[in-house]
């Protein structure tokens, strides 16, 4: 290929003929910003960020689509180019939920809130799972965008959580088309593309079908290539950016595909294809299911040994000793070992060697899955078990049925999950596997693939080869002193014991269609372990999951359920006794289902006559999602209240009631009561942007003045509650008492200001809470020298004296557990009328 020379930024740069100006610049180490461009994709020219000036060419050509030519003189930076790029970014941010960029409190927000909130809908960066890795955000920061000059438009498209594994929020989409282009590149016929036109243009499927009703293979390439948070991996999203990535091999089916494990704090939280190409594509099991197997709530994390008729937890040493002791008595052909086809070559070798040399038996069998059937080969082993010839079994999974189990005297199981076999086992050894182990794997194309131990196994859990070696050593047999799989491989080579026969390829290929995805791992039906797979393969027990539909009738009927603004839900519940007794400032503890957490919610309104109370909540995690997904006509499992102390309603003079987020609703009854008590009441409503403001009419009707303040200045004052209070002070308002309800961060900032001006301020506490009656002490808050319980001394406590930092630390105590508890089930699309009421645009 001919070499050409051009000048970029005054430097002589060499390039190949056919290179674009962008490629030529990148090769020379000259950075040009891009968004729609991606090394795996053909030039596209959609985002206009890579514009440059080229001598002799009109205007500002996009460097990603302009071929480099001999003698070209290119400028990548000039005041005009910078200005144009800034405008491009601003226009993108205008159609993205971006008030955080222009917020006055961004710096302290990120300091005190290092992780984003697990919101159901992203209404700003602090609610976005992609905050740490967002390419748009990085560019906006690089170009120092802190004023948009254009309004932020929330498109109000329903968030798509209907499919397994992925959430799609096209309100965040900037239409770079990377997802559609990679989908077409990998699958030839893509599942998604641009649909509609003009302002309604978006990414979508034909006829807006859910992906399960299309030919989508759930390879996740779209999720991995998206520069924003529009597409996300439901399981991995809230863990944050991975610490590192390790290439390894999937062993669930004989294809043995390469994949990259994403590791965070030692855990494999995700996996993706090793390159964005058709050759490197992987199936939904590799992309989404493997991490959910390793981090599965059902996973056994401890070893167990049998005591009389039950299993009790044992140390690894005890379990190995017990296994060795039992096996001593079953040497010879009365012993069998069943391994699984997902074991590494080293593991298979060691397991065979153990069977042959330690147990002196020929009964080694391998369980393989064929579609929805399990095969044990050779079949003679299963026959021998059924004929009672085999008395002791070492099994690496759930392979044999109860009738066969009955015939056995001794059972040792090394596995990850509970099973019928495990229940009857004499010893259960919890094993490390998949991303936690290393070794080699012969795939169906005859290639030897490498597994790398990337994730840290749970404490005291070891891979199968190590478990078997330790048992062999305990039984006093030499030749099992391996420390690494490398040592095993060396012996295999020396003994010429390497199996060259590749396993059969699964037909049809799981890469082509979700109907042919592997259904088993170690004999366990994957759909029993990973609920999202139910969309493709029926789980064994179908009665699961019906719980919500058959929810019991309780007295707590939901009268109305509305999403007032994106991610903010109002629930009105029949609760006559609570409605009769509650006072402004009190809260209730609600349980949505019988197995739900008990969660405190401030009472946002009550109607003594109709016997109802109203709660306003933000969807920010598992329990608030349960409440957000209820519908009128359903029942809450339980409701306790009113709890906590009411606010002290009396005549103060001028009272400020300030609320943000869910606190907007919660301040209504307080404002109303203060007004009735003869106070001059000023309400302050804070929101990130205009599209989150709500209940303005209800508040206006119950106060003397309503001050609106938005973080992006799109309506009312620009800033937060503290800026609104500053404004009131500056115009000469004397504030005698303030009530503040909202997130801890906002209440802290407001309290700091109130302290400066000596305004008595009561803030509504929202710490972790269990019983709500002062027994457990979980909700303790340090107020000056005293320790107060938010449930019985609060929820309103003296904001000027609260130890806010300690409160935030306590609130963050279960951050990881809260992420682990996030539900993985798809959420049905909301019915019309249930969806958000915000006007479009």
């Amino acid at each position, binding site marked *: 290929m001919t070499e050409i020379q051009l000048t970029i930024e005054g430097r002589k740069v060499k390039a190949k003929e056919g290179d674009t100006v962008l490629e030529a610049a990148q090769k020379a180490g000259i950075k040009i910003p891009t968004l729609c461009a991606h090394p795996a994709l053909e030039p596209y020219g959609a985002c206009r960020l890579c514009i440059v000036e080229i001598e002799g060419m009109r205007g500002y050509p996009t460097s990603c689509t302009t071929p480099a030519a001999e003698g070209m003189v290119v400028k990548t930076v000039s005041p005009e180019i910078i200005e144009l790029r800034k405008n491009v970014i601003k226009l993108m941010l205008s159609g993205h939920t971006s008030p955080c960029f222009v917020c006055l409190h961004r710096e302290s927000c990120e300091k005190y809130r290092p992780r984003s909130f697990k919101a159901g809908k992203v209404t700003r960066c602090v609610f976005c799972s992609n905050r740490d890795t967002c390419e748009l955000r990085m560019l906006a920061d690089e170009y120092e965008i802190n004023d948009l000059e254009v309004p932020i438009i929330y498109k109000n498209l329903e968030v798509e959580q209907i499919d397994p594994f992925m959430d799609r929020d096209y309100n965040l989409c900037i239409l770079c088309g990377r997802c559609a282009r990679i989908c077409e590149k990998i699958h030839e016929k*893509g599942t998604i*593309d*641009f*649909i*509609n*036109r003009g302002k309604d243009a978006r990414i979508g*499927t*034909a*006829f807006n079908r859910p992906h399960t009703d*299309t030919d989508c293979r759930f390879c996740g390439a779209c999720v991995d290539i998206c520069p924003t948070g529009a597409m996300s991996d439901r399981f991995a999203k809230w863990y944050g950016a991975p610490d590192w990535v390790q290439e390894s091999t999937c062993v669930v089916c004989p294809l043995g595909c390469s994949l990259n494990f994403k590791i965070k704090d030692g855990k494999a939280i995700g996996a993706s294809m090793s390159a964005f190409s058709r050759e490197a594509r992987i199936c939904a099991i590799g992309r989404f299911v493997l991490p959910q197997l390793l981090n599965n709530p059902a996973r056994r994390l401890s070893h167990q040994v049998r005591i009389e008729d039950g299993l009790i937890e044992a140390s690894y040493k005890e379990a190995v000793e017990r296994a060795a002791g039992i096996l001593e008595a079953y040497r010879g052909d009365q012993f069998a070992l069943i391994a699984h086809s997902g074991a590494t070559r080293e593991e298979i070798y060691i397991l065979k060697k153990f069977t042959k040399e330690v147990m002196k038996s020929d009964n080694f069998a391998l369980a393989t899955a064929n579609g929805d059937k399990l095969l044990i080969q050779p079949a003679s082993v299963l026959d021998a078990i059924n004929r009672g010839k085999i008395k002791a079994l070492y099994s690496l999974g759930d392979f044999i049925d109860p009738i066969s189990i009955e015939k056995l005297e001794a059972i040792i199981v090394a596995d990850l999950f509970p099973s019928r076999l495990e229940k009857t086992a004499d010893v259960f050894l919890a094993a490390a596997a998949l991303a936690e182990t290393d070794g080699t794997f012969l795939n169906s194309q005859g290639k030897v693939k490498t597994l790398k131990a990337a994730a840290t196994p749970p404490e005291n859990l070891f891979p199968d080869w190590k478990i078997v070696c330790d048992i062999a050593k305990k039984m006093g047999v030499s030749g099992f002193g391996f420390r690494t799989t490398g040592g095993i491989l060396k012996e295999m080579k020396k003994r010429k014991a390497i199996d060259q026969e590749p396993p059969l390829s699964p037909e049809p290929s799981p890469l082509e269609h979700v109907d042919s995805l592997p259904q088993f791992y170690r004999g366990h039906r994957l759909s029993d372990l990973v609920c999202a797979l139910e969309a493709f393969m029926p789980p064994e027990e179908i009665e699961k999951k019906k719980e919500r539909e058959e929810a019991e009738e309780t007295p707590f009927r939901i009268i109305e359920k509305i999403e007032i603004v994106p991610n903010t839900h109002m629930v009105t519940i029949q609760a006559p006794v609570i409605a009769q007794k509650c006072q402004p400032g009190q809260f209730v503890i609600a349980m949505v289902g019988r197995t739900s957490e008990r969660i405190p919610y401030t009472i946002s309104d009550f109607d003594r006559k109709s016997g109802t109370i109203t709660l306003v909540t933000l969807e920010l995690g598992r329990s608030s999602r349960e409440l957000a997904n209820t519908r009128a006509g359903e029942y809450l499992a339980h409701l306790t209240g009113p709890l906590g102390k009411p606010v002290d309603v009396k005549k103060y003079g001028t009272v400020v009631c300030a609320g943000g987020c869910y606190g907007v609703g919660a301040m209504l009854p307080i404002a109303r009561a203060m007004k009735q008590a003869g106070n001059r009441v000023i309400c302050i409503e804070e929101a990130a942007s205009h599209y989150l403001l709500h209940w303005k009419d209800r508040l206006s009707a119950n106060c003397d003045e309503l001050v609106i303040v938005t973080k992006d200045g799109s309506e009312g004052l620009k800033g937060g509650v503290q800026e609104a209070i500053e404004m009131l002070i500056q115009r000469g308002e004397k504030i005698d008492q303030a009530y503040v309800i909202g997130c801890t961060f906002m209440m802290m900032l407001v309290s700091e200001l109130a302290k400066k001006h000596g305004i008595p301020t009561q803030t509504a506490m929202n710490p972790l809470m269990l019983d709500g009656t002062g027994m457990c002490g979980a909700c303790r808050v340090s107020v000056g020298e005293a320790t107060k319980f938010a449930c019985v001394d609060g929820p309103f406590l003296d904001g000027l004296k609260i130890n806010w930092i300690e409160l935030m630390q306590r609130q963050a105590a279960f951050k990881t557990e809260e992420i682990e508890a996030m539900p993985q089930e798809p959420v049905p699309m909301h019915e019309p009328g249930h969806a958000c009421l915000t006007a479009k645009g």
Partner: protein
Amino acid sequence: MTQELQTVLQSYDRSRDSLIPILQDVQGKLGYISEDAVKGISEYLRVSQSSIYGVATFYTQFRFTRPGDHIVRVCQGTACHVRGGQRIMNEVVKYIGIKPGETTPDYKFSLERVACFGSCALSPIVVVDDIVYGRMTPQKTKQLLKEME
């Protein structure tokens, strides 16, 4: 794939360039672009269903639901608007009980709004099944629809 669709497809090259003419032809024969038609075109042209749907939704000329037996278009262009086009639309909406862009459940009528028909001299106009009715009033329009039932 229906015989009708197959006949349409076979008269075109298996090339992406044929997509819009095929869509127009399918709509001309079937009245709309059905999900089955998109599937058939996708298989014939080896273009993904989402791309076909993307192209079809880009142009307002394509529709995706079965149209009614009579297509009623009420002009809302400037001239028709000035001379009461909105009142005619309101009357039609009230009379057949659907909004523009919808079809009655019995597939009798589909209602569409058009921006201008180029027959401003006759404004306000209503077009039913490609026949232009000029100088319409709400009353005359209602009468016209009544006669179609």
